[in-house]
C-alpha cells in the first residue's frame, strides 16, 4: 500500500534580489496514515514553506508530491479543489488567520459551503457538531474573533481544518502563540482528534519539547535542507548531526537539576540565497573542515535514521573518547 503522503526531491525556490532563495531544497519523506511527522528548525529554515508547498498553497519548483499514491505535483484546478478536502492546514497565529468580520459559526461553516453538497440545515447541524468536537461552547456561535482568547480562536482554526474530514493536516506552529496551560489543552485536543479520526499530521514547530511529545518521526531542517531525520525517541537519544545537537542543547529546561553544558552556536543562519554547495551549517559548526565544502548526501545510519553530515562518525567517536 502506498504511503498517505510522499515528497520526492521537493524544491521550492523564490526569486529574490540577489538570486534564487532556496527555501526548500531537495526534501524527501513519506508519511503514513495516522502518524505525525514533526518538522523543526529555526525561523527562516523553510519549514513553513515546506508545509505550504505540500498543500499547493505554493507551487513546487521541482520534485514530486504523491498523495494516496497519486502524483499531485501538477494538479488541474478540479483536482486541486478535490484534494483540498483531504489536506488541510492549521495556521500559527489565531489572531490573524481568522476573518475579523466573520462570526464563529460562519467561519467554521465556510469550508462546508464551498466544498460539501449538504443543505443549509445540515451545514448548520454539522457546524454545531464541529464546535462540540473542538470544545467551543454554543454561546459563542455568533461571537466574533476579537471577543475570544487565543485558545478559543485556535479551536476555531482547528474546526475549520476538520470540517471536510481531511486525512492530512499541516499544523504550522499551532500552539506557539498560546500560553502553556492553554497549549496543553490544544495539544490534547489534537491528539484526541488524531486517534478518533486517524489523522496524519505534519507538525511544524520550533518547540522541541512539544515536537518530541507529539511526533512519530522528526525532521530537522537547516536552510532549506533536511539535516537529520529519525524516529522521535531515537533523535533525542542518539543525536548525530552537530546542528541537531546544538538545537537540542539550546532548549531551556525548567529544572535546576542536571544542567547540561550548552552548545552555544556562533552567529546566525547564513543567507539561503544562492547557497554554495557543501554543508550549509558549516559557518556555525565547531567541527567544520575542508571536506565539508564538498556536497553531501543523506546517509541512513540505522533503520529510519538519516543524517547529512560528512563528519558525524568522527564527532560521535570523539564524544566516546571524551567520556
Amino acid at each position, binding site marked *: 500500500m502506498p504511503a498517505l503522503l510522499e515528497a520526492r526531491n521537493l524544491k521550492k525556490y523564490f526569486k529574490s534580489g540577489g538570486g534564487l532563495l532556496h527555501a526548500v531544497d531537495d526534501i524527501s519523506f513519506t508519511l503514513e496514515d495516522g502518524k505525525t511527522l514533526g518538522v523543526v528548525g529555526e525561523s527562516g529554515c523553510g519549514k513553513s514553506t515546506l508545509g505550504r508547498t505540500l498543500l499547493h498553497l505554493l507551487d513546487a519548483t521541482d520534485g514530486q508530491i504523491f498523495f494516496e499514491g497519486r502524483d499531485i505535483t501538477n494538479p488541474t484546478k478540479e483536482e486541486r479543489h478535490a484534494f483540498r478536502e483531504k489536506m488541510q492546514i492549521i495556521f500559527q497565529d489565531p489572531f490573524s488567520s481568522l476573518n475579523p468580520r466573520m462570526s464563529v459559526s460562519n467561519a467554521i461553516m465556510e469550508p462546508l459551503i464551498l466544498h460539501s453538497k449538504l443543505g443549509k440545515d445540515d451545514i448548520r447541524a454539522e457546524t454545531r457538531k464541529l464546535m462540540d468536537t473542538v470544545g467551543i461552547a454554543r454561546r459563542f456561535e455568533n461571537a466574533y474573533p476579537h471577543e475570544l482568547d487565543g485558545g478559543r480562536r485556535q479551536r476555531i482554526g482547528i474546526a475549520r481544518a476538520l470540517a471536510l474530514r481531511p486525512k492530512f493536516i499541516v499544523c504550522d506552529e499551532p500552539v506557539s502563540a498560546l500560553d502553556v496551560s*492553554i497549549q496543553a*489543552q490544544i*495539544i490534547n485536543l489534537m491528539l484526541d482528534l488524531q486517534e478518533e479520526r486517524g489523522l496524519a499530521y505534519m507538525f511544524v514547530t520550533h518547540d522541541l*519539547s512539544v515536537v518530541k*511529545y507529539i511526533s512519530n518521526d522528526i525532521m530537522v531542517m537547516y536552510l532549506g535542507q533536511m539535516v537529520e531525520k529519525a524516529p522521535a525517541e531515537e533523535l533525542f537519544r542518539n543525536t548525530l548531526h552537530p546542528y541537531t545537537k546544538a538545537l537540542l542543547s539550546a*532548549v*531551556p529546561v*525548567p*529544572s*535546576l537539576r542536571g544542567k547540561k553544558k550548552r552548545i552555544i552556536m556562533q552567529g546566525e543562519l547564513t543567507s539561503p540565497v544562492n547557497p554554495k554547495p557543501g554543508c550549509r551549517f558549516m559557518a556555525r559548526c565547531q567541527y567544520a573542515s575542508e571536506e565539508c565544502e564538498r556536497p553531501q548526501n543523506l546517509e541512513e545510519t540505522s533503520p529510519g535514521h538519516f543524517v547529512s553530515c560528512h563528519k558525524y562518525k568522527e564527532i560521535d567517536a570523539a564524544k566516546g573518547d571524551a567520556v
Partner: protein
Amino acid sequence: MPENILEIKNLVVEYHTDDAVIHAVNGINLTVEKGETIGLVGETGAGKTTIARAILRILPTPPAKLRGGEIFFESRDITGLSEREMRKVRGNKIAMIFQDPMTALNPIKKIGSQISEAIMLHNEISRTEAERRACDMLETVGIPSERYGEYPHQFSGGMKQRVVIAMALACNPELLLADEPTTALDVTIQAQVLEMMQGLKDKLGTSVVLITHDLGVVADICDCVAVVYAGEIVEYGRAEHIFDGAARHPYTIGLFNSLPNLDSSERRLKPIKGLMPDPTNLPKGCKFMQRCPDAADECGARSPDVVEVEPGHQVKCFYAGVNK
C-alpha cells in the same frame, strides 16, 4: 543584611475604560536584593508587564491608574517623584528591555546614535565621548563597533535585541527590567542572548527583573521566582523553592504539569482546566479557585493570606501549609 534595590509595597494598578475597570495588578509586594535576578513568571494578561511599567512610571495614563502602593527604589519612594526627577532615574538607574526588538528601535536612526543619545541624556559628556562609549557598549554585547552607523533593518532579530540590551545597559543602570527579552528569538539565539545577559550581570552587578512565561528561561538565570496570576503574586521563593517539585501553589504546580514531560510515557498532557478569570470581573476569594483541583468552600469566601511555608518561600493559598 543584604541591601534591597527595589521594594514594592501593595501595588494596585487599574485600567479604566469606558465600559469597565480592569484590575491588572492587585496588591503586589515584591523585594529585589542588590545583584539579584528575579523572574516574574505568568501567563498573558497576568499583569507582569504592567508591574514593570509601573516601576518605570511609563504606564499609559489614562487609561491606567495607580490606585495604591509604594515603590521604593534605593530606599526612595519613586511613585511620588515629579516627572522631571523621574526622568533622571528612567534609562539611567532603571532601564528596560522591551519584548519586541523589531519595534523597540527607531527605524530611521542609526543604531549607534540611538545608544549615544541615551548616554548623552544622562551624562555631561561630549558627543565624541558618548560615541566612544556607545562603541564600547556595542562590543560588550558582541556587535563589532564598525556597525555603529547601520540602521535597524540591517540587523537580524537576535542582533537587534543585542542593540536594545546595549542601549539599556549604556548608562550602567542599577536595575534592569527585561520584559520577555528572548521570546521573539529562536532557541539558539535565545541561548546566545541569555548567556550574554548572564555574563554582563556578573560583570556589572546589575539587578534584574526578568519577565517571562518560560519556566525554562527562569531556571537558567534567575535566583528568585515570583509567580504572577491575575494580578497577584501567588508564589514566591528562591529558584530551589519552585523547581523540581518544590512548588506549593496549585497554579505553579499546574504550570509545570502542563509542560510536555519528556520522560513520561503518558499520551496526554495535563493542562490547567479553564481560563484565567476576566480581569474586569475578578472572583471575590482566591482568583485561581475556578481552575483549582483542590478548591474548597473557604477559597470562594475570602482571598487567602500569604503563608510562609519555609524561610523565604511564600504561597498565597489556604492549603499551602497542609501536607497532601
